[in-house]
Structure formats: structure tokens, C-alpha cells
């Protein structure tokens, strides 16, 4: 909003798709803005998912999502080098425990070969147990996709947005799109709180709310179904932690309940898949949670309810044909719809950014590479990753590295301050950036300390501090 000239592109939705698109566009001489209705980025589906970089064999190449998955998967090493988010290419195993499941394994294998999944192999029972000794002895065989991996999805989105902003993208949070009006050359996009932005092109990457945004622009109906997935998080000390991501043979509407070694060292079990009506319903349910253990134990018998440290749910925005819809609107001009981004949305995101950039180019948008584009971002050292000597120099340079605030995940005050200074001023935002509060005590120890630091750094009255924005206040008042 520096000048009266319209932006070139306005991206609505700062989840993994929107963030990827914004960062991609920030490499060109374009005026780009990224908006999100939440008070921080990655607060939608991008924060509650499996964190998996998929292996490119689950979907046929005739689906857009399959092509973007393969392309996206290949881009993660470079992105990891540039952005430094936690990422590990640990590999994926699909486990068959019945003979009729072996047929599906064959199909997945063929699909993987066709798609170009690097290193994919069909495995005998012995090979499966060699790759993963903790597997159920009922395993008959399966598939190994070494190109699969794990990431911390919210860290990934934070890095993408930080990089985009570093390269000129404007971020506006608490910006809930109310209406868009086209004047023949550009869109005037108005937020509920009265702010407005003008842009020649708009990208609707609003995830679960892509349908509402589309309506605000009088564009086509996007019939999304929220599909809920519930997860359990297991303690990092659980003996059930596998070396690779474990999949069962997929069902008609989901890849199944997985056992996922997270890149942080914990274990995720889930997700379930249940279509619901209310797109704001992120509640976990006793019935679905029970199912998770039944399924997970079929993969790794050692999975135990006693290791649970928390549970959560995420919602996938699903289109009827189960594919991504990424194209210009057929109803209104200069609006690109990026809808139905369910799995493998995270994996595909770098390719989605590319794809949207190409759509813009084909539409005639001039894309001149920005000479000053810097693909790297500032890395905030993490105390838990530092050996004693490294820790010593960190503390010498910044004594706040010596104050351990979250003892379960070994997070120092310096990292909390860094998170706050980067704009993460909610308890959840700080949690996603630093991992403080994600450990076994679930914030019992660190919450009071984080509140103190937040008050000190921002001057916010403690009663104004929220868990995740809006009315999610932690405290009612002061004595």
C-alpha cells in the first residue's frame, strides 16, 4: 500500500500454498502482497497435518496433484538448503499385511515408476523387516519409496513467508476478505475491518475458505468438503518410533492411519479421515481416536496409548474429484483459484508456486527476474541443536541462550525472543516457531515464563495475550 498503483498480485491465504506462491513471485519484479484472516501465518490446515513429503506413487499421473507432488518432492533439498526448516528424507514404506493388499502394492509401484518416483522398490517380507524391524510380523511385503521424507510444516511455512517478505512481499494478517470488485483493470479487495488492497491479479489460496473467498469475488462455486483427520502425538521416548514413515495400503478416501517419525523426534499416529460439515470443527473425538490405535498397532505393535502426549485434528479441503483445482476462474477475470489442496499439498507446494507463476506468465504478466532476490533467510540457532561448545558461544553472544525456558524441548529465551521479534506474538505462534510447549509437559512449565517474556518484549498487557488470536485470551485479569 505504498503507492496508489495497484499491486501486481495479491495472494489470499498464507498457508503452505499461498506462502509458496508468494515466495516464488518474490523472485520477480512484481509488487506482491500476501494476506491471511488469522493473526499469524500457517494457522489453518498447514499447521495440523502429517508433515510428510510424499513419494509420488499414491496418485496417477493423470491427476494434477500427482504431477505437482513429484515435481515438488524434488525441490525440497534446494529449499532446505536455502531456508533451513527441519527436513529429513527418511523414506516411506507402504505395508501390506494381506495377500489382496499386495495387488494394490503392485499398482502403487507401477504408478510410482510411471510418475518417476526415484528409487522406488517393491519389497519382500524380509526386505520390509530389514528396512523396519519394528514392523508387525504380519507384514507380507510392501513398497519402499526412499524419496519420501518428513518436515515440520509450520516451520516450512514460516520460512517461506519470511523469505517472501525479505524479498519485498507485504504481509497483512487479520485480513479477512469480505468482497472483491473488478474495475476492468484491477481488483479492489476489501477486508472485513475496512482495510483494502488493489491488485491486478488475485490468487485465491484460502484453503478451507477458498469457497467463501471465491464467492466474495462472485466467481464460481467451489464445493469443498472438510475432511477431518485426527492424530495422536507420542512422546519422543516411545519405543515405537520407526525409521521411515509407515503407510498401510490406502483406502478409497485416504492414505490411511500412518505411523510417522517426525523430524523433531516424536511420533505421530494418524490421521483418520471423516467428512464433516463444519469447517471450523477441529475437535478430536473419542471414537476416531480409538480407531487410530487399532490401525497403528497393525503396523507397529509397540505403539502404546501410554506414550500419548497430546492429540489434535486437522481439516482437509476436499473437492469432489479429489484433485487440485489450480486455474484461472472461468467466471471472473484475473483471479486464479488454488483449491482442493489436500494431501499431497505440502509436498506439491513448491511446484504449486511454480505452476501459478507459469499461469500468470501465460496470461501475459511480465516476469522479470529480480536481480536482488535473496533465497536465503536468517537462521535462528536452536539451543537443543547445539553441542556444549556451540552453546557456549551462543550464550556469550546472547546470554538469553543460557536461560532454558522450555525444558522438555530445550528451548532458550533467545529463541522465544526471536520468534516474538519475527511477529509470532501468540502462544501458538511461539510454539510453532520454537517448539516451546510441544513437549511432554505441554506447557506446564514454560507458559508462565513465556507470558513474562511476551509482556516484556511487546508491552502487551497480559490479559491481551492470546493462544491463537481473536478471543483466545489466556488470562482474564490481574489482581
Amino acid at each position, binding site marked *: 500500500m505504498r503507492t496508489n498503483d495497484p499491486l501486481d498480485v495479491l495472494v489470499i491465504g498464507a498457508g503452505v500454498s499461498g506462502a509458496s506462491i508468494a515466495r516464488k513471485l518474490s523472485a520477480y519484479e512484481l509488487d506482491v502482497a500476501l494476506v491471511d484472516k488469522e493473526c499469524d501465518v500457517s494457522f489453518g490446515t498447514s499447521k495440523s497435518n502429517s508433515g510428510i513429503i510424499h513419494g509420488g506413487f499414491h496418485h496417477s499421473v493423470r491427476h494434477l496433484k500427482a504431477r505437482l507432488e513429484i515435481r515438488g518432492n524434488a525441490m525440497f533439498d534446494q529449499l532446505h538448503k536455502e531456508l533451513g526448516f527441519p527436513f529429513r528424507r527418511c523414506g516411506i514404506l507402504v505395508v501390506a499385511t494381506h495377500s489382496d493388499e499386495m495387488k494394490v502394492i503392485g499398482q502403487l509401484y507401477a504408478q510410482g515408476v510411471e510418475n518417476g518416483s526415484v528409487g522406488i522398490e517393491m519389497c519382500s517380507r524380509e526386505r520390509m523387516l530389514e528396512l523396519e524391524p519394528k514392523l508387525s510380523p504380519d507384514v507380507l511385503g510392501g513398497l519402499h519409496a526412499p524419496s519420501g521424507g518428513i518436515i515440520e510444516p509450520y516451520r516450512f511455512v514460516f520460512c517461506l513467508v519470511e523469505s517472501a517478505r525479505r524479498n519485498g512481499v507485504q504481509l497483512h494478517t487479520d485480513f479477512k476478505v469480505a468482497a472483491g470488485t473488478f474495475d476492468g483493470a484491477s481488483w479492489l479487495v476489501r477486508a472485513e475491518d475496512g482495510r483494502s488492497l488493489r491488485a491486478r491479479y488475485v490468487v485465491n489460496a484460502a484453503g478451507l475458505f477458498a469457497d467463501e473467498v471465491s464467492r466474495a469475488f462472485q466467481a464460481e462455486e467451489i464445493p469443498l468438503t472438510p475432511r477431518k483427520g485426527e492424530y*495422536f*502425538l507420542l512422546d519422543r*521416548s516411545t519405543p515405537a518410533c520407526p525409521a521411515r514413515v509407515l503407510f498401510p495400503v490406502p483406502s478409497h478416501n485416504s492414505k490411511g492411519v500412518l505411523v510417522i517419525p517426525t523430524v523433531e523426534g516424536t511420533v505421530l499416529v494418524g490421521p483418520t479421515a471423516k467428512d464433516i460439515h463444519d469447517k*471450523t470443527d*477441529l*475437535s*478430536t*473425538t*473419542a471414537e476416531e*481416536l480409538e480407531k487410530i490405535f487399532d490401525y497403528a498397532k497393525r503396523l507397529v505393535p509397540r505403539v502404546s*496409548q501410554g506414550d*500419548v*502426549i*497430546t*492429540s*489434535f485434528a486437522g481439516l482437509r479441503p476436499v473437492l469432489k474429484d479429489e484433485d487440485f483445482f489450480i486455474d484461472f476462474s472461468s467466471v471472473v477475470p484475473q483471479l486464479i483459484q488454488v483449491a482442493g489442496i489436500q494431501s499431497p499439498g505440502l509436498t506439491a507446494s513448491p511446484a504449486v508456486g511454480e505452476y501459478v507463476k507459469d499461469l500468470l506468465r501465460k496470461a501475459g504478466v511480465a516476469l522479470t527476474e529480480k536481480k536482488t532476490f535473496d533465497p536465503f533467510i536468517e537462521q535462528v540457532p536452536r*539451543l537443543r541443536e547445539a553441542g*556444549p*561448545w556451540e*552453546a*557456549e558461544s551462543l*550464550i*556469550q553472544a546472547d*546470554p*538469553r*541462550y*543460557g*536461560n*532454558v525456558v522450555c*525444558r*522438555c524441548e*530445550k528451548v*532458550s*529465551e533467545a529463541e522465544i525472543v526471536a520468534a516474538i521479534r519475527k511477529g509470532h506474538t501468540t*502462544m501458538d505462534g511461539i510454539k510453532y516457531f520454537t517448539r516451546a510447549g510441544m513437549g*511432554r*509437559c*505441554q*506447557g*506446564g*512449565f514454560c*507458559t*508462565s515464563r513465556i*507470558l*513474562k517474556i511476551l509482556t516484556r518484549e511487546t508491552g502487551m498487557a*497480559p490479559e491481551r495475550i*492470546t*493462544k*491463537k*488470536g*481473536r*478471543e*483466545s*485470551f*489466556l*488470562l*482474564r*485479569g*490481574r*489482581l
Partner: protein
Amino acid sequence: MDAAVVGGGAAGMAAALEIRKRGARACIIERDDELGGILLQCIHNGFGLHEYKEDLTGPEYAERAVRGVGEAGIAVFTRTTVGEITANGAARELTCYSADHGVMRIFARAAVLAMGCRERNRGNLRIPGSRPAGVYTAGLVQRLVNMEGYIPGRDVVIIGSGDIGLIMARRLQWLGCRVHAVVEIMPYPSGLTRNIVQCLNDFSIPLYLSHVVSRIHGVDRVEGLDVTPIRNGAPDPAGQFHIACDTILLSVGLIPENELSKTAGVLITPETNGPVVDATMMTSVDGIFATGNVLHVHDLVDNVSDESRLTGGFVADYLSGTRPARQVRVKPGSNVRYVNPSRVDPGRGNRLYLRPLIVKNKAELAVRAENRQLRRVVLNHVQPSEMISLTLRERDMTDLSPDAVLEVSLS
């Protein structure tokens, strides 16, 4: 350094004081700003009835030990967190982080683990529902209220009838909040009767025994929860009711905080979630001792001081090269959940701490071995929420064979 004590609460201070009294050098490493541990936030009274024969508040109890530590010349490192303990030949090496001192490596001939507990939380209980703001563990609210002066909410429901929750029920009422209910899964309360009376009955707060919280509601902040009765051993949805509230406190148990112990390779038993210790309170790692809540969850701080003083004495023995000539195994028998320590030294008196599985008046506590009864005591009243301490005397353990196993039972 002769002994490094990890944790400056009641346990750590008592152990360090005893070590110092016996002439060895001790230091205390405490992660908070000052010594005192959890006692500093326990501003209610009821402490010290045994230790000092007075009715003290937590801070009053702590201050006596803190004064002692100051006078005894024990080195204290506050704002210092121990990251790792390794056994390094004859020394225990503690790697610590501190803003003032950077990374410190403390070498001590003995280490005492006195880190206390963490609280069981909603995640462990897997309570379904949304994840709004306003769900806390009782200990966290105790700190926020008593040390920072915050009011967490207005309308409160407490899950679990543990003492911390009961104490906080009264504290919140005294702040002007309204506590609508305490919901307890068991058919009996887990806290002391004194607290049921003074924290719930005094304020007419209903206690729902044999009930579970089946769902938490609320988008941004807690809006209410569903409570379901347990009938015939299972939740009965027909009896479910809703309580509107904006704050939920969980008082559902404590877990000894042994992550640091694990870095040292200390063996932890699922019976107590604490280290296995021998007759000298030494863990499975030579020269590393454990005492207080990190060993097993206590309910009286007086017992913590007592146990830790004894531990300090054993550490001093260890430092002077004295080890028990022999040790005999102890195990829990019927109606006893666990016994600590798991070994006794028949050459002296041994203080045993145990927890019953039953509620009974005039219960008989018996120690048996090799088909004979070594000791029998009648206790006026036992209940799971009250730890029992028994001193096994040298004369109770005469003529025991080397592989005798003592069994402690209640009936």
C-alpha cells in the same frame, strides 16, 4: 566438588544441608531465580506439622531451609539448568546452561537428583473436544495466580480431586472466581479429607465422584465441558450433562521428572516413574542418588525433608568410602503399590516409604521374609493418597539369608 545437588526445592536443600553437616562440600543447581522449589508457590498452610511441629505456609517452610543453606556455605547456582549428566570415571559430570555463566561443566564425586515432578495434563488424558485457550494444569495456575497475580478466568471446573486442584479451588474462590464443580473419575477423592472439607465443602463446590469429562467445548476460549457418569465400570452417555465454564484446571496426578536422570543412564521403574534405588538411595548408576518427588510422588513435604536428610547422610557415607556390607531386596506385597527403596541394609535401621492400594481403618502392615513375620504394625487409617513411612529396625532383620526377599503387605 564432592556433591552436586540438582534442584533447590525441599529435597535438594535438605540433602545438601546434611551433606554439608557431615563435612563434605556440596553445591545446589537450581533452574529458577531462587531456592525454594514448588514450595514458593504453595502459599497455603499445612506444612511442617511434623518437621517443625508448626503449621506453616510453603514459603515459610522453604525459607527455613534457605536460611540454613545460606548459613552452611553451600554454593548455589540459580537460573541454571542441568542439560545432561554423565558418569565420567570417578566423577559425575553435569553440563549446565546459565545466562550468567554460559555452559558450565560441574564435576562432582556424587550427584543427587532432586528435580521434583511435572503434572499430568490434558494431552496425557486424551480428553476429546476442541483445543481452546483456558485449559490449564492446576500447578500452572497456582504459579500464575500466586506468583504473578493473574486471574486465569471466571467460571472454573476442576478435573481431578488431587490436593493441588482442591487447594486451587479455594484459592480461585478467594479470588472471586466461581468453581462450578470438581470431577473425579474414581469413586473416592484422591486428595486429603481436610482439603475436601476446607476447599470444597466450605464453598459448596459439588464433587462428582465416578465421573469423567467426556468433551471440552469452545472455539477460541473454553465455553464448557460435558461430564459423563461412570456406571458399571463404563461411561454412561445417558447420564451426560454439560457445565458452562471458561476455565478448566487439571489436577490429575504428578509424574516424577526423570528426563535428566535418563541422560545419565539411570534405570527408571514404571511402578513409581522414578529411579530404582538401593538402601542408600543410590540409583543404578554409581554415585548418583535420588530423593524427593523425583524418586516418588510425596504428599507431605515433611517426608521429603526426612527422606532427603537420610539421603544426604548416605551420600556423605559414599564420599567417605563407606558402603553397606550387604543389602537385601524389598518388594511390595498385597495391597501395597510400591516400596522405596528397593533394598535395605540389615546392619542398621532403614526408613521405608510405601503407598497402599486400599482404604482402611486399623490396617495391618506386615513385613515378611523367608516364611516368617519380621515386623507388624497396626495403622489407624490408610488410603492411597497418603504415603506410609515405616522404620525397619536392625533387630527386625536378624538371621536373614543373603538372597532373602522382604515383602511388605497391608491387610
